[in-house]
């Protein structure tokens, strides 16, 4: 006699809830916001933090992943608009390679000198990283 298929339910881990992860990401962002660009500390911090998140994202055991959606339907092509817009703008400014035609990172450099802006952007980077890790 065949046994009935096992029914499994994904139970979110207590520490993976937003009430826990958001304050942790905020704390890590505040620390990252204090480290100036082009410094050894900033290099080490982003490399270690990002590397850790990549390892967690690749392991697939530490954090439960959300289900993958099915094949994209034609309306998904709307995403080509911002993607192509960014690719053209970044590509042209990158190929120009001068301060007269700055790339996005060159435009952001002076803004990221401010600690509040830096911490806010750091939080955005980490939050998006966490979303990717869980997908």
């Amino acid at each position, binding site marked *: 006699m065949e046994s009935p298929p096992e029914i499994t339910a994904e139970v979110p881990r207590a520490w993976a809830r937003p009430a826990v992860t958001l304050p942790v990401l905020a704390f890590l962002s505040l620390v990252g916001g204090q480290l100036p660009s082009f410094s050894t500390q900033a*290099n080490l911090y982003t490399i270690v933090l990002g590397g850790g998140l990549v390892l967690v994202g690749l392991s697939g055991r530490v954090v439960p992943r959300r289900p993958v959606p099915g094949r994209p339907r034609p*309306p998904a092509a709307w995403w080509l608009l911002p993607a192509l*817009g960014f690719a053209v703008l970044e590509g042209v400014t990158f190929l120009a390679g001068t301060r007269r035609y700055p790339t996005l990172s060159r435009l952001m450099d002076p803004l990221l000198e401010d600690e509040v802006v830096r911490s806010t952007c750091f939080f955005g*980077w980490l939050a998006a990283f966490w979303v990717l890790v869980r997908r």
Partner: protein
Amino acid sequence: MTLVQGLIAAGFVAVAVLLGAVEWVARRPGSAVPTLSDMCALAMSYEVRRLPVGRVVLLGFWWWIGWHFFAR
């Protein structure tokens, strides 16, 4: 900031607004447009002989983005 630099900055802002608009449409009830997160999940599900190429590339790319903007 020169006029050209201002125009380039406005172009990047326009792209960000466009991205936000598509995401807003995607999050409306019954929308056929997938969210950015769903698009990323699709890209990350790409595998070559059980090697998670899409996952490695996207996570690696985002790692590099952080290093490029906050450290280098």
